[in-house]
């Protein structure tokens, strides 16, 4: 559920609707730099109406999904 929404936001952000994304996909693999990551997390936060701490090491899409799931639980 959360993953699906995150993937949708990510695909829109990259403007690539057939982008392959899994929990294990890293930001690096997705060609997202640090600023992209921050922007993306902000969009995800907005979509879920929550906030997550970005000071940890966010490396994969799974890391973001896990934090969002915890935040909205």
């Amino acid at each position, binding site marked *: 559920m959360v993953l699906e929404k995150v993937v949708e936001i990510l695909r829109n952000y990259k403007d690539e609707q057939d982008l392959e994304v899994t929990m294990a996909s890293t930001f690096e693999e997705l060609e997202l*730099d640090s*600023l992209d990551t921050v*922007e993306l997390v*902000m969009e995800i936060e907005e979509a879920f109406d929550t906030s997550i701490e970005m000071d940890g090491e966010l490396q994969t899409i799974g890391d973001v999904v896990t934090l969002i799931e915890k935040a909205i639980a």
Partner: protein
Amino acid sequence: MLTGKTALVTGGAKGIGRAIALKIAEAHGNVAIIYRGSQKNAEQTLAELLAMGVEAKSYQCDVSDFNATKALVAQVIKNFGGLDILVNNAGITNDKLLIAMKEEDFDSVINTNLKGAFNMTKHVGTYLLKQRKGRIINISSVSGLMGNVGQCNYAAAKAGLIGLTKSAAKEMAMRGVTCNAIAPGFIDTDMTKELKPEIKEEILKQIPLKRLGQVDDIANLCVYLSSDLSGYITGEVIKVDGGLYI
């Protein structure tokens, strides 16, 4: 030069900020001016801006208040339908010799002059990054470069603003947003009128051009840095000080 662009100028009701707002309007840019306590000055400046035929509005806000600035930026973007230029000009002085300075004298100046710029840059910067284009101009001071007797709080805040400028420039460059600082010397405004005469006289002796600067000396550069002409300049600190600090 700035047709179709919208600028937000903090401390835009009077002094250097007012001159910047007017020069931006002269270059056909729309202007949102932010003031904290100078409502009468803001009304007057707003009337002048509107008379110049640009879109203009004034907003009351304390830039040191993080949440208030967030709401303010959202409101300005809504009202103007976008934002292109941020001028962090709001500043106060509270001069005392360091050993006579109270904690609150130090904090108030840091909060408005430095934290205020951070607050505005964060909220406006988020929008400009998404837009992939924008200009941020921070009004620092030569006090931040050379120090000044009685101004350890002001000089520290203005030096901090230079660090903020350079860091923001590096972070935002890859999204087409530039960030530069102007370091005015002693400019003929209400703020410098507060300086003690003996300090003022001493300063004049040290200015090679032998006069105080005028607000338009700063505003002209600000318009240039706001425009497309300055697209390859970022992270720069430009002194406008009559040669005071060479």
